[in-house]
């Protein structure tokens, strides 16, 4: 069953067509990998889904409701969370406060928001840093903080924009474990990622985008052996 359907979405920036009649279907509970060269429109797609941009055409349907053109805060209320490519933590607030802010959306008071936040931090193994200022966190911790914040809103679908960028191999492995845990809780994940190894291990299904369109779709094996994927994105070494 589809949790999110992007139907024939087009987005132009002046003369540049960032997305052209794009159809994307995300099934409930899956981990979908979104790959493609820079400028393919992956982040633009995220920004359209969450309402940061208005599409020039097409529809975004989430849990059978048309959410096209809703404001970002409304989209969040419907149950879509996102992280940013360049992390945007609230630097003056503590890690806990950052996550409490996410929890408020479904809490009746500060105490409940706090409880939600503490549980979420626990799940993402950030409890030890709860009292640190967000500005004191390392890059991997900031990425996890953003995930925690988005999860605290009660999101059913999480859009993660390059959650592994700038991480060491062991940190990546750790993040993969965490994401599996999140997915195990029934949260649907869409992940923009450049590291093919990560995509191969984490995502049963992958979409390769190029120039605002879907180029190849399938299992990681299917995608990585597709000649179009090799020319557009992966390079010859993957063809072997």
């Amino acid at each position: 069953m589809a949790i999110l359907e992007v139907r024939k979405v087009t987005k132009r920036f002046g003369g540049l067509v960032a997305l052209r009649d794009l159809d994307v279907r995300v099934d409930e509970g899956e981990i979908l990998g979104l790959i493609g060269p820079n400028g393919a429109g992956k982040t633009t797609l995220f920004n359209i889904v969450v309402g940061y941009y208005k599409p020039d055409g097409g529809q975004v349907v989430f849990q059978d409701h048309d959410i096209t053109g809703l404001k970002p805060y409304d989209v969040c209320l419907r149950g879509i969370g996102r992280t940013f490519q360049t992390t945007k933590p609230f630097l003056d607030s503590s890690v806990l406060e950052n996550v409490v802010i996410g929890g408020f959306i479904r809490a009746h008071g500060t105490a409940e928001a706090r409880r939600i936040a503490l549980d979420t931090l626990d799940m993402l193994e950030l409890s030890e840093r709860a009292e640190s200022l967000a500005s004191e966190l390392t890059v991997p911790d900031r990425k996890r903080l953003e995930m925690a914040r988005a999860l605290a809103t009660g999101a059913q679908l999480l859009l993660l924009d390059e959650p592994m960028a700038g991480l060491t191999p062991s940190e990546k492995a750790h993040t993969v474990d965490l994401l599996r845990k999140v997915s195990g809780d029934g949260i649907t994940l869409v992940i923009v990622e450049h590291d093919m190894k990560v995509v191969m291990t984490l995502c049963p299904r992958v979409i390769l985008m190029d120039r605002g369109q879907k180029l190849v779709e399938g299992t990681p094996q299917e995608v990585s052996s597709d000649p179009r994927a090799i020319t557009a994105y992966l390079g010859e070494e993957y063809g072997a």
Partner: protein
Amino acid sequence: MKQGAGMEASAERLKRRQIPPGCIALAVLLIVLMIIPFVLKERPYYVHIFITIFLWSYLATAWGLVGQSGQLSFGHAAFMGVAAYTTGVLFGQFGINPWLGMWVGVILATIGGLIIGYPSLRLRGVYFALATFAFAFILQMFVRNTLYLGPVYIGAGAFLSIPQVSGGNAPGVFQFASKTPYYFIALVMLAGVVSLSYLLNRSRLGYYWRAMRSDPDAAESLGINVGKYRLITFLVSCALTGLGGAFFMQYFRFINPVRALDVTQSIRIALIGIVGGWQSVFGPMIGGFIITPIAELLRLHLGRVPALSPIIYGMVLMVFILYMPRGLNGPVLRGVRWIEAKLRRPAESGKHKPRR
């Protein structure tokens, strides 16, 4: 060991959060301020200075709510002026008791806030500041060039005064013979607005403020309607500023566009807030206590040099924005905490002394 770490952590939190410097400092301050008018009974000028300190601290704290939500207003004199004029005109020309009329002023100031705030919702940073500035400027120009607004005489640029009742000794219409009642009204207003700012800061709205001023896009992605909460904050600030304006009218009894609506007054409010720390609870009050007496000294001793105080205001503003954008709030609170710690643990600090 573990307890020590816990205490360290809570001390860290104290440092970071805008928690008051502690009950001792605030209690001492409040007691001193309660005694002052009785000590200075024979020196009304000094009582007057304190009243102006309270008033400007009050206005800056009310203004600071907008700052905490991540916006800067350079037009707050407009909301002060609207309420001041309303209160004065309602009493002077329609005989409506100022105790009642001031609330009409507050409502009109809030409506003024809505007129400028609603269309400016989407504006961020300097654009919002410019919009507020322009609004206040237009309003002042309008008042300056308007003698009658319908049946209401607003006097163009001339002074508008309220009639004295019983030689100014009429508490029933917000007029007092001595400065002491004004002093306490202003003090209560200041204590009230600072308490409100403190409580809001710790509420859900306070969390939203920190999120919105740190990163509005991230805040929206977490379900916060940034425009709505900024507007609510702005309206609360306008209403409170209106209340300050009504007090301004009743205390000074004279008003004109320069005193109540001028850009320099808007800048003065902002300056006090910025010098004190415009994104903090106590900063604007600290700024008021420091800037107001200095401004008064400048006026007394250099008042004859034209346009000097705006020049000095501008220079001070620039220095703080460039070199101390968070204002004096942090250093002052740290100092107060240091003194408090010394007072609380004299034995411990004694132990450390021989090492020096």
